[in-house]
């Protein structure tokens, strides 16, 4: 009964209802749309971080993260691999790598880089590099002397495909090992810093050059479902003894990204509140006016014996319908405006360097997160009802005589 009354009441003056609803619609739309944009930015950041050799989980020698030198390698990878086979959920992929600091040089230039020894067949399912080759090809397992370098590094060294590049690093016996490689492929990355930092050779070449035997520096794991990361990390930690190994999830491996994610969570919530306040003024104002317009009516109701509480309930039910309708339309508009955005994302190439400075990527794909949608709607709904209490109480307070005298 109350609900039917409320529903009919709001359509007694459709123009007013539409005006109030438009405020709710715009508010919700902006929350959903901007929330999705910001999530798109952070999601891309996480993806880049994970694809740039991090993976979801990594296993290292326990001292490697603190002191990434060749001595702190996993000397018996078989034991770890057996554990991984046992514990990882089906669909997970993983690859071993050798990763040490080295110096690359050619006739004209030299520079500090990170040498990464990979198993080509497995690496191409884990990290970005195999897909990012723009000239030449990725490594093959048989490439004894092949090396893949970033475009920026190749430019800096004034070199190109087919030219020689000498790598120098410390081997397990603390001697300087050096070896010449030939550039077989050039990759591009989202970030220039990545292109300058990493060079890739085959695992066997790296192990041979550094006298590692079968030793490796890290194992990078990608799970089929990233939401299982925490759980799997814990499981691995228990299975692999902490005296020998360290298991870390991407949140720990990329503290900067994790920190930015947290910051954005705060931003998004703050943004919701700000939008709500801006919208709330309009909401209160229009509801209040709608109430004042109907002073006579409320007075009459009261004269007929309606309790003040019922009137409050009546006005709140009207607000409820307005909010629900506005939210429904606002949400659909929000989703719609995100879906009509080009599937190529929003290209920010002109600002690429600035994005890079902040560790972000060149193209933003908006992402709708259910968490944000729920928060946005909750904020609007709860606060919206809360601010409607004021006009509702006002309506309940009119004394019958005073109200009915009002024209």
């Amino acid at each position, binding site marked *: 009964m109350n609900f039917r009354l409320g529903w009919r009441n709001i359509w007694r003056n459709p123009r*007013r209802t539409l005006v109030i609803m438009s405020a709710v619609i715009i508010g919700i739309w902006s929350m959903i749309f901007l929330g999705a944009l910001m999530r798109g930015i952070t999601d891309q950041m996480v993806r880049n971080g994970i694809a740039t050799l991090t993976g979801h989980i990594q296993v290292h020698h326990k001292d490697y993260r603190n002191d990434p030198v060749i001595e702190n390698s996993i000397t018996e990878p078989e034991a770890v691999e057996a554990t991984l086979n046992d514990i990882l959920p089906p669909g997970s992929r993983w690859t071993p790598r050798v990763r040490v600091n080295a110096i690359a040089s050619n006739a004209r230039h030299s520079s500090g880089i990170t040498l990464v020894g990979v198993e080509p067949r497995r690496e191409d399912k884990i990290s970005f590099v195999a897909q990012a080759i723009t000239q030449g090809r990725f490594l093959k397992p048989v490439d004894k002397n092949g090396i893949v370098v970033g475009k920026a590094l190749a430019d800096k060294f004034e070199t190109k495909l087919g030219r020689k590049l000498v790598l120098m690093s410390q081997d397990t016996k603390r001697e300087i090992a050096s070896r010449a490689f030939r550039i077989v492929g050039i990759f591009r990355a989202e970030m220039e810093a990545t292109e300058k930092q990493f060079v890739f050779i085959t695992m066997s070449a790296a192990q041979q050059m550094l006298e590692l035997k079968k030793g490796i520096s890290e194992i990078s794991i990608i799970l089929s479902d990233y939401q299982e990361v925490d759980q799997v990390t814990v499981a691995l930690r228990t299975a692999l003894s902490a005296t020998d190994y360290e298991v870390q999830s991407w949140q720990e491996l990329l503290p900067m990204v994790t920190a930015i994610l947290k910051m954005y969570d705060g931003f998004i919530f703050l943004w919701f509140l700000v939008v709500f306040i*801006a919208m709330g003024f309009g909401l209160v*104002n229009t509801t209040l006016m709608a109430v004042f*317009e109907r002073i006579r009516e409320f007075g009459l109701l009261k004269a007929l014996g309606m309790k003040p509480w019922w009137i409050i309930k009546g006005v709140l039910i009207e607000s409820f319908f307005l909010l629900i309708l506005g939210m429904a339309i606002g949400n659909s508009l929000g989703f719609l405006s995100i879906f009509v955005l080009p599937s190529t994302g929003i290209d920010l190439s002109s600002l690429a*360097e600035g994005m890079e400075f902040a560790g972000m990527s060149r193209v933003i794909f908006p992402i709708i997160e259910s968490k944000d949608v729920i928060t946005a709607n909750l904020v609007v709904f709860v606060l919206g009802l809360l601010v409607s209490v004021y006009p509702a109480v006002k309506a309940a307070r009119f004394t019958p005589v005073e109200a009915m005298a009002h024209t």
Partner: protein
Amino acid sequence: MSIDVKMAWRNIWRNPRRSILTISAIAFASLLLVFMLSWQFGSYDTMINSAVMIHTGHLQVQAKEYEEKRNIRLVVPNPDAIGRILEQTSELAAYTFRANAFSLISSEERTYGTIVIGIDPPREARVSTLKKLIRQGNYLSADDSNQALVGKLLAKNLNVVLGDELVVLGQGRDGSIAATVVKVKGIFSSGQDEFDRSSIHIPLKYFQDVYAMNGAVHEVVALGKSLEYIPEIKSRVTAGIENMNQKDHLVVLDWMELMPGLIQAIQMDLVSGFIFYIILIVVVAFSILNTFLMAVFERTREFGVLLAIGTTPGRLTKLLLTESVSMTMVGIVIGIIAGSLITWYFQVHGIVFSGAAEVMRQFGLPERMFPRLSVLSISIGSGIVLVITLLTALYPALKVRRLRPVKAMMSA
């Protein structure tokens, strides 16, 4: 006060509750914009200055192409001549000379490839924060020779402590082998991992001997008294270099060219900030439009009467616009005052980002940030709010003109 203005003013206060709410919405929007813009502008200055002070400086004189190629042979052969030009520039705070070479650094057990930087200790202390970043040991003194300052992360990677020896192996300017042994005199930490991991600093004189620099340097680094003077200093130094007939050989680079990422990060922040503001203003504008519209609906009868007794539609529009303008102005003034007060409070006390400390540190930013009130930050925001509200007010004000007196008087 003309009769119209008086009427508008009284109309506003006929329904004080509604007017106060509308004014609050406008005040809230301008308050927020004043604060946010002051905040953005304030953080840019902090960002630029702290990034610049770690190492880069406001301005550098280098050999052409040195910035891209970092080749040891691309030198500034006569740094003192550049120094003389800089000394004649009054807006300059300080300047120093530096030389860089990529070399192999070995401790007893480890070897890393890093940049060796030759610095002029007393001068460097005035240009960069290096001296203040020393966490262990001491800064270099003017007469040190084979002493070095090492970044904290590099020291950890090399596994060295104060007093340990490092073997430096590189290539000199003339192509000869440059080799020496230096002692760790101090360990610095800037918080920026990249900087703390990749360089050691030795005295410039000693660097010039070891790398056969023959008195030359790679960078003349200058710091202006303030950011605004940089273009002025740049043109003066460029002119000075032209007078020396070194134009084809030397270039003057300012911080925007030395750190293109920084200026683009700022541009991006500005752009994304403006997207936010625009959406915020759209939301506020809708709020305001609603109240204006409702006010007009409510007063249909009244307008009918006014028209019937001979008020021209033009005058009615003017009346309504006067009402909106007055409300907007009151709202904006309140917003500016409240916004300035809040901003001023934080300008004095600063804002601490406890959660974001890690992020800020990597950008070389202090944890406490200060917004900065300026004419610009106050006027931009309130200007936009003013324009948007006036545009919003136009719609109901023009709608009134189409009212038919008889029909309007009949409505409830």
